[in-house]
């Protein structure tokens, strides 16, 4: 028992020593000037969208023997007097509301001449502009979006099976920023319908929230983005139409005649496409311009400007423009839909991309300066083998620093008839990658190079249908006057 006592004594001793050392760590207080103190009302300052010359008052105190300066930092607002010296007990900070609605704040930090500092934050709420409509839920019943509003996609918005989304001519749709699971997109699921019928005087614009384009601009005939350059991409997702037309996918056993569209996380089942209805109708999509999109959900898995997965021939897709998409311009995954009058400008990957035996025709189109392949044309992936026709097109393979990876890229098993295509702006090294694929035919293909140079742009023997020329057969550019590319002069001379 005696020894137990000894132990507890020793342990207590240790504890005491610990306490002693702990207390030694504290510095003796050096007498100082009073610290500055900043306070602000905790009430939220509500301001209207686009409000300017707003102000908020902070109460400030500091040691009377000293002087003090302040700095103000705005989040979501821009502060007009962001620093200065403190006079009196109130600092008034003036600010303008930023471009985004929602929560914002201003932090005021006061520092006295002794280097002592304090800060406080005022909370500001910028109201939603009246014409903006936040879309947060999937569309499960018939809905119409009107041209007097701007629709903000706050996530992956899906038009569900059985529902029709009608978008009036001249309507603007903007996607919020985000990548991966956070990417925004408009997805039309199998069985859903999109009736987006714009016209040359009032196209429908899909763009980023960063784009300051407003309904008034459309009404005034100004379709280009007022603040974003036509090479800024990846700001949101894109438009994805999925249908029930046949696809040649590899998992065609039994009930797996459907697969997941790229760019949509596998866990969202609205991303499935494919079926047995060749004449399936996903609606009417005409005169739409899709801009600044293409954000990805993982490497090699991204959102095209316009993705058409298993879309049936009952669907109308005409007069489409894709500008500055981070991925492909238009990509077809099987299906039977025909597409007419297309401009693809400054995309980050392929211009025209086809997979899984798309069985339709692309007629009259211009591709300008894609960073990937101008054409990435794949063959069937399942046992169903069908082909497509690509005709009457103009391709600008190089514009300044922007070069396409090659001219035509086909696989051994590709099935495609290429007719009346004119390639211009051809740089060294740009080629047709393969001319031996049995299912690929070339007819009336002209390269804007000399006859001597022509073999340098074909990997293999130059097929009969490929010649040097200056555009006997090409796209009819006159129908693209409504596009941003057209208005910006990117199509001049084509």
């Amino acid at each position, binding site marked *: 028992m005696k020894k137990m006592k000894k132990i507890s004594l*020793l342990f207590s001793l*240790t504890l005491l020593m610990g306490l002693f050392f702990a207390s030694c760590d504290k510095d003796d207080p050096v007498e100082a000037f009073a610290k500055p103190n900043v306070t602000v009302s905790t009430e939220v300052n509500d301001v209207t969208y686009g409000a300017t010359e707003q102000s908020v008052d902070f109460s400030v105190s500091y040691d009377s023997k000293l002087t003090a300066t302040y700095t103000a930092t705005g989040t979501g607002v821009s502060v007009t007097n962001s620093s200065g010296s403190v006079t009196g007990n109130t600092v008034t900070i003036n600010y303008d509301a*930023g471009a985004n609605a929602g929560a914002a704040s201003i932090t005021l930090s006061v520092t006295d001449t002794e280097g002592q500092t304090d800060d406080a934050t005022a909370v500001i709420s910028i109201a939603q502009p009246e014409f903006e409509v936040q879309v947060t839920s999937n569309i*499960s019943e018939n809905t119409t979006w009107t041209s007097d509003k701007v629709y903000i996609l706050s996530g992956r918005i899906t038009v569900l099976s059985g529902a029709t989304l009608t978008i009036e001519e001249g309507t603007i749709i903007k996607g919020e920023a985000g990548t991966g699971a956070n990417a*925004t997109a408009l997805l039309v699921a199998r069985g859903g319908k999109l009736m987006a019928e714009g016209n040359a005087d009032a196209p429908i614009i899909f763009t980023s929230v960063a784009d300051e384009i407003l309904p008034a601009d459309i009404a005034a005939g100004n379709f280009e983005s007022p603040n974003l350059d036509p090479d800024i991409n990846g700001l949101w997702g894109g438009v994805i139409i999925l249908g029930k037309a046949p696809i040649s996918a590899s*998992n065609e056993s039994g009930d797996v005649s*459907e697969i997941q569209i790229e760019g949509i996380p596998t866990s969202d*089942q609205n991303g499935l496409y494919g079926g047995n209805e060749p004449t399936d109708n996903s609606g009417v999509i005409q005169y739409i311009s899709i801009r600044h999109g293409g954000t990805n959900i993982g490497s090699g898995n991204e959102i095209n400007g316009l993705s058409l997965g298993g879309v049936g021939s009952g669907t109308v897709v005409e007069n489409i423009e894709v500008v500055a998409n981070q991925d492909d311009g238009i990509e077809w995954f099987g299906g039977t839909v025909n597409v007419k009058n297309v401009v693809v400008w400054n995309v980050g990957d392929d211009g025209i991309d086809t*997979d899984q035996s798309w069985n339709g025709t692309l007629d009259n189109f211009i591709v300008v300066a894609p960073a990937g392949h101008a054409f990435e044309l794949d063959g069937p992936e399942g046992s169903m083998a069908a082909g497509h026709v690509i005709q009457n097109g103009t391709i600008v393979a190089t514009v300044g620093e922007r070069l396409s990876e090659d001219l035509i890229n086909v696989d051994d098993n590709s099935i495609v008839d290429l007719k009346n295509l004119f390639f211009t702006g051809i740089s060294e090294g740009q080629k047709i990658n393969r001319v031996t694929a049995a299912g690929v035919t070339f007819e009336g293909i002209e390269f804007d190079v000399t006859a001597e140079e022509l073999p340098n742009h074909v990997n293999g023997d130059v097929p009969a249908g490929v010649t040097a020329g200056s555009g006997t057969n090409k796209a009819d550019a006159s129908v693209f006057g409504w596009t941003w590319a057209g208005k910006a002069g990117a199509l001049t001379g084509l």
Partner: protein
Amino acid sequence: MKRLIVIFLLLISIFSQAQQGKVRGTVFDDKTGETLVGVTVLVAGTITGTATDLDGQFTLDLDPGSYELQISYISYQTLNVKDIQVKTGEVTLLENLRLNESTLEIDEVVVTAEVIRTTEAALNTIKRQSAVIMDGISASKIKLIGDNTAVEAAKRVTGVTVEDGKYIYVRGLGDRYSKTTLNNMDIPGLDPDRNSLQMDIFPTNLIDNMLVSKNFTADMPADFTGGMMNVETKDFPEEKIISVSASTSFNPDMHLNSDYLTYPGSSTDFLGFDDGTRVLPERARQPNIPTPISGAPLQETVDFIKSFNPQLAAERVTSPLDYSVSFSLGNQIDLSKRSNSPKLGYILSLSYKSDYKYYKDVVYGEYQRYIDPDRYEMRYATVQNGELGEHNVLVGLLGGVAIKTSLSKIRFMAMRLQNGEKRAGKFSIDNDGQAVGQSGYQATSDNLEYNQRSLTNVLLNGTHISKNSGWEIDWRLSPTLSTSEDPDMRKTAFTNTNGRFSFMAGAGGNPARIWRSLNEMNAMGKLDITKKYQFNNADAKLKFGVSHTYKERDYEILFFDMQFFGGQSWTVADPAIVLNPGNIYPNRPNSIYYQSGNPDPNPNAYKSNVNNTGFYISNEFTPIAKLKTILGLRAENFVQRHTGRDQRFASGDTENGINLDNEIVLEAFDLFPSVNLIYALTEDQNLRASYSKTIARPSFKELSFAQILDPISNRIFNGTLFTYPGWDGNLTETRINNIDLRWELFMERGQIISASAFFKSFDNPIELVRIPEQQTSTEYQPRNVGDGRLFGAELEFRKDLDFIAPQLANFNLNGNITLVESQIDMTEIEFNSRKTYEKNGETIENKRQMAGQSPYVINSGLTYSSSKTGLDAGFFYNVKGSTLSIVGAGLFPDIYIEPFHSLNFSMNKKIGENNNTSIDFKVSNILNSRVESYYQSFNAEKQLYSSMGPGRSYSLGVSFRF
């Protein structure tokens, strides 16, 4: 901490009685192998003596000299041990004192102390009489051989395969069906996604024993099937231990190699944790991060971009050698001078380990099959070739204090492990556009990762026995906190387009950074009550008890990728310059900024918890002579809850999306009956038969909405709560029926031969399945597949080679060969999709091998040990047959892990006064095997899924006991 050690050392000196020496021993019942309580130990011809305590242990303080001890107990033969030398200040150990039941002929046995010291049959007896099929290694054997870490010692246990140098598996069943416990408590490993605890952290001089149970009794947790390994730490070291050891290891492929890859991390990386350098910038967590389009002022956006660490490149430096150091301390002290004094035991161990690995030719491949029945060969979709450098730091701290009287024991143990792994890799990626779902590109990537893990575990344990009534109570409480964080994983992949470099989202991807964090809390409590009684003139034991486990996990992944405001222009593909100030927004042309991949709420964050309450009752008795019977029934009530949401909900679709708020995702009340019969054919031969029901439950990660990307291999794991065509999102437990038959023959000096047959049926086994609907990226999901079963045969032996020639008595051959035939009934979807891809000449049945189950496992060792010369050496060989690891079907071929022929040599020599210095020499992976997995398809050449060469390594260690 230091001061505490000083105090401890002080205590030791106070209590050591320098003028006397000590005799310590443990007394066992030779037949049952159990310790005997209350045995009288007398110095022959005197009245000096004591009695054994609840651990069967005794201590006598004696003046220096030679003694004879008389050990006696009612109805047992008295054992006289002669020639016990007691030296001043030293402890003389008699670890295996074995009493036999008295017979008419013999009631007294005389042996010398030397004989007692060199037998190591105690463990054998444990096995002979144990209720379950058990293998293991005891402290006395470890000491005899001289292994320094638990992993080394575990190699000597038959039927055990050591993987990755630290994980232990039994009978070739994978991690899902194995379990490791520490002091019989469930504690999560450092890797929270594994059931197994890593074994390289325990110094052997603090281990009392390691036992592997191959079948189930009601007092064990029901969630194991292949085998459960328990590590029991020492509470009362027999003698004072103060030891230090150090070792180093050289791998010619990996060390002193100037190609080794790493990156500047933080100043505390060498301690196994990050000092905050890799922490997520504060603003990055907010929903509206500053970007050129967020409306934030320019300077704020620029500051935000700069708040991320600009290091993106893997850098080459010369890799040092591996090294490790450890210190351990332990003793027991009498708290009074009485002969049956209460005792205080303590252990303390500190260890530090630093390993460098450099894999110079790592391969990851994605392959596909053609649908054409005549095209047999597979084609690649993506192949990545590259190099990987890893630096692994492990710091371990283990301490324990215990107090016992002759009938009660309380112990407290605490453990802290800190592990940091820094990885840097360079890969070249070749994606084939011809493959299904692929766009075709070439890229080079730099990958930087850091994983830090910690584990803090505390155990409070009490054991109380009543001397005469046969009751024993054991209670344990054990909370554990564990974390695993991957701060700032960076992947920077330049896509190469005809010699021009850029970041392409549709190809090699934009540069990305990921933060992952996992926190887990685990609390377990347990009460076991045992009543020994006589039944049918034989010992019988009734056990019953209750346990409760609460586990809680908090998980989050945050993802950011870099975007370019406008075009890009790079003259060289050098990740080191990517985040130079001139490339950051608003500086054109690259104008880099960050975009957030994290919706609010985050679908890649979840919280889960589990409550598992268990009750059991078990009776061990001998209803018919020689037939020992253990009947048991365990009940477990298991409830798992989940808080998380799917992608749809997170993207704003609150109507159709799913959001779970602490909702039950798994709930079951199960009864687990077990019957174990042991029939003693002769004195040294047993026939055993057992039946039991066990369970394998899905993990937190499996029952979640998480989508976890491995940035290096670019493969994605999907939680099972997502539904797909053919998968309803309801993952259930696997229930397993186990039947075992075994014949065993025990010979002296721990030699055994046994043959077993076993059958297991699996109801709803879980396997990792490739998601067929997703063709662009490689995604997997665990799913319940069709029912499965396996039939196995096992041969086990441990035999000295003196039967060949007497000179070979010090050589021992041991091994274990397991053959398993496993079967899974395919689901209709799997069968159909395989049928679609059936090649000409191939016949697809609706059954296949079970994932994770090797068709054969061979573990063997040839050892030499001589306690006289203090030399111990051995060759150890392990191999597992080709094992299906990921279930393919359709376009995607099956993936098999190829046999890894692991041949290792180790040698240990004890030298110096009292053999207190021990020198180790080891050669690992003598055959220079590679760790490889392959895609396999009918009639096609196999293709690499992953390949890494650990290389051959040589290590040298020295340990010194004071």
